[in-house]
């Protein structure tokens, strides 16, 4: 599964994207964030701070209950600040 990161989340994680093999226990966006938050990587703890990180699956904003499927493009990022 392809993960993308943007803005300060990208900087704190030190990467713009990565490929992961999804553990079979992870079925939703929220579960994926919990799993990512437990990894021992710089910035990983940011996923544990509830409500800060937003997610999009296949370029659509989604909530934590959204189910993940093989081949999804999942993006994580801070609250948007456009306009």
């Amino acid at each position, binding site marked *: 599964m392809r993960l*993308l990161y*943007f*803005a*300060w989340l990208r900087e704190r994680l030190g990467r713009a994207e990565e490929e992961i093999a999804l553990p079979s226990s992870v079925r939703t966006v929220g579960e994926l964030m919990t799993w990512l938050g437990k990894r021992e990587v710089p910035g990983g703890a940011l996923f544990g701070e509830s409500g800060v990180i937003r997610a*999009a699956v296949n*370029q*659509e*904003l989604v909530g934590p209950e959204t189910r993940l499927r093989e081949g999804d*493009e999942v*993006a994580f*990022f*801070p*609250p*948007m*600040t*456009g*306009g």
Partner: protein
Amino acid sequence: MRERVVVRIESGDFDPGAEFRLLCERTAGAGGIGSFVGIVRGEAGGRAITAMTLEHYPAMTERAVRAIAEEAQRRWGLLGATVVHRVGRLVPGEQIVLVMAAAAHREPALAATSFLIDWLKTKAPFWKKEHFADGTAAWVAAQAADEAAAARWR
């Protein structure tokens, strides 16, 4: 069939006068056109800014902005709408964003203009980084006031 909604995400500058004329041409019968242009300011929180970088999510940006413009078109029965949003590095005084809404009357044109900019600020995948005169840089924090402004339209 003329396009109701025109959306462009680009690094170059735009010409509000040209966008106005194009919107007029494709919206016969409009009684009013509202618009807003956002411009990079030279300071933030009292600190001088030398530049701003607009990061975005290329595969998603245009789709998300188009969905916002089409939502405005439906809610206010717009005859046409144009949204242009720049990305990349901008310096103070440069234009960042343009929204325009054409409707039969002034109320929907102006309400849709406010809606478009409020939702662009909070629901489209853009992130601003400010570069200060002292060489440091910081990501712009999401504003509670912007969330509240966007929530008006729920």
